[in-house]
């Protein structure tokens, strides 16, 4: 670690991992509720578990992105963070606001939460993924603005690299697009139309910039390849992400009441959305092949290559499967969507955060460039368990989705719940794969805590 202020990333990473575990626990609860309908009812109804599962995902990824920015910005800008104190304040405010929101979800019915938090004054609640009370949303905006101010000043006063400029651009985009969560028109079509400006333009727009910059940073550090080469790749990836991703929003506008031409625009541009992810895969493997050094943190390199491959498969291939309007006509909102969502989020965003934590953690613990061999081996086990677990979750949901499409949309003689019953075997298998996933996640955390300095490990 070159700058003392980078240490402020540590609590962010710890919070991210804690919330990640909670997210997966709620995932397992919901997975079980698919086949055991009244499991934990009425304490945790399915809709609450789902809300907690998806909201925790967003919050822990945001913690991960913020930790990553606090870690890499000082090093890229070649100066200390503008204010460590502000970084600590934003951490605690965000953590407490997030925790209170989750407690609110679990402690009372959603309608009551809306009432208590004064939703009627400025209604923003009740929309998928953006269920948090208006006051929490305001809190998020304040935290993100303070955070961007902090790292923005650091970059402005220091060295500007392509990596930190793209990271800041992505984070500013994240903040700007989130503002649409405050716009809640009463016309349902318009409501959905702008809702996607948050949801789609985050994960298929500005978050890709964040992912690309974090990946580039770790690859520069672990392979020693020239920045000039990396910068060119970054420009290309970012250009393709925005060209395909912005108009690609249209693939959500096929059936919500918008004009028909969105079927053309959405199909064509989103069909090309795999390109930036494919470029990231080639980029990662190219850099590792051209490496000028063998970095001792092998686990971090494994994560970096893993995230590139899994993002391409999950976001690129599984997204493409159902992005063309004539196909989406049958597949819309089935388990195939869930399959894509799981692998895309894991591959692109969960894994990039795990990559940067894997790279930064030995530095933050004062272990030098890498942890001891034993904890790295454990971490690689966690990589394979989580990744294989997720591949199987995706495959089982894809199987369930294809059958669901056939029975419900093509054959169409049976009702939704009858068909869901027939898919039970897939849901049980998915729950099994989910259990493997959480074992992998726990191993990752164990590896973080048992890690030693390589020299100390040898001595003992």
């Amino acid at each position, binding site marked *: 670690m070159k700058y003392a202020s980078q240490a402020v990333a540590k609590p962010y990473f710890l919070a991210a991992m804690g919330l990640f575990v909670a997210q997966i626990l709620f995932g397992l609860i919901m997975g079980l509720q698919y086949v055991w309908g009244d499991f934990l009812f009425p304490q945790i109804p399915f809709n609450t578990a789902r809300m907690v599962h998806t909201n925790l995902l967003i919050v822990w990824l945001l913690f991960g992105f913020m930790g990553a920015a606090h870690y890499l910005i000082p090093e890229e800008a070649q100066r200390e963070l503008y204010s460590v104190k502000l970084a600590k304040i934003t951490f605690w405010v965000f953590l407490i606001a997030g925790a209170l929101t989750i407690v609110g979800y679990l402690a009372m019915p959603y309608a009551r939460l809306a009432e208590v938090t004064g939703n009627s004054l400025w209604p923003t609640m009740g929309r998928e993924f953006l269920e948090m009370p208006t006051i929490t949303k305001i809190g998020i905006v304040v935290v993100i603005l303070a955070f961007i101010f902090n790292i923005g000043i650091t970059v402005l006063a220091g060295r500007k690299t392509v990596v930190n400029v793209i990271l800041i651009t992505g984070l500013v985009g994240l903040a700007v697009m989130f503002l649409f969560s405050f716009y809640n028109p009463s016309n349902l079509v318009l409501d959905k139309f702008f809702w996607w400006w948050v949801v789609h333009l985050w994960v298929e727009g500005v978050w890709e910039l964040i992912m690309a910059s974090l990946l580039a940073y770790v690859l520069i550090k672990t392979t020693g390849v020239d920045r000039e080469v990396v910068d*060119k790749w970054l*420009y*290309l990836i970012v250009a393709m992400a925005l060209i395909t991703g912005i108009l690609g929003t249209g693939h959500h506008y096929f059936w919500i009441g918008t*004009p028909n*031409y969105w079927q*053309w625009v959405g199909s064509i*541009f989103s*069909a090309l959305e795999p*390109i930036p992810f494919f*470029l990231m895969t080639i980029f990662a493997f190219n850099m590792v092949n051209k490496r000028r050094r063998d970095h001792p943190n092998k686990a971090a390199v494994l994560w970096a290559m893993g995230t590139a491959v899994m993002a391409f498969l999950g976001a690129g291939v599984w997204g493409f499967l159902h992005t063309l309007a004539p196909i989406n006509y049958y597949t819309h909102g089935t388990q195939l969507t869930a399959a894509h969502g799981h692998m895309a989020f894991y591959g692109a965003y969960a894994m990039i955060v795990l990559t940067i934590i894997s790279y930064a953690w030995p530095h933050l613990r004062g272990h030098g460039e890498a942890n001891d061999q034993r904890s790295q081996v454990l971490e690689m086990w966690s990589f394979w368990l989580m990744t294989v677990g997720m591949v199987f979750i995706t495959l089982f949901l894809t199987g369930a989705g294809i059958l669901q499409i056939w029975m419900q949309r093509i054959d169409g003689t049976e009702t939704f719940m009858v068909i869901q019953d027939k898919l039970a075997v897939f849901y049980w298998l998915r729950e099994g794969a989910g259990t493997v996933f959480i074992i992998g996640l726990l191993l990752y955390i164990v590896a973080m805590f048992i890690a030693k300095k390589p020299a100390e490990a040898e001595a003992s």
Partner: protein
Amino acid sequence: MLVSSKLKYPRGDLAVWAFIYAELLVFSLFFVGYAFARMLHPAEFAAGQQTLNPVLGLVNTVFLLTSGWLVAAAVLACESGSRSLALKKLVVATLLGLAFLAVKGYEIGHHFAVGYDLDTNTFHFLYLFMGSFHFMHVVLGAGVLVILAVKVNRGDYSNGELRGLESGAAYWHMVDIVWMILFPLVYLMR
């Protein structure tokens, strides 16, 4: 270390070429889509074509092709060291690009004015969308030409390092190639 960019293939920056291919991919998806839609709705497409003015399209073809040729000639002129000639060619090429934009802008404006819009039917959507999308590429390309002209004027390419100029020229060429498919496909094919 390469002394002259002549030894290198493709000329220009590889990243720009990747970008160009990606752009071509987007347009080609639209062209394939157009072909299928036309096959499914021949009457609608035939009627739609009647509302277009092929003479304006032809004029624009001449503008873009001449402009493309001038930019290629500007690269050669720069290579042989005649900077002022290269600059003149680039300026005229840019003006022709702007002329294209004026004609195309009039055409699209007129199309809306007589009552067609993106939602009229598939033909009118494709005509307007592909045309506007290409229009925006001409805007970007013309902007690139202006930057190239400024750099040629400053003597940035006097050291034989022409990659920036070649990359910009390649991009501009992509813009006219796309038009060379778009024009006959949408305006002329019966």
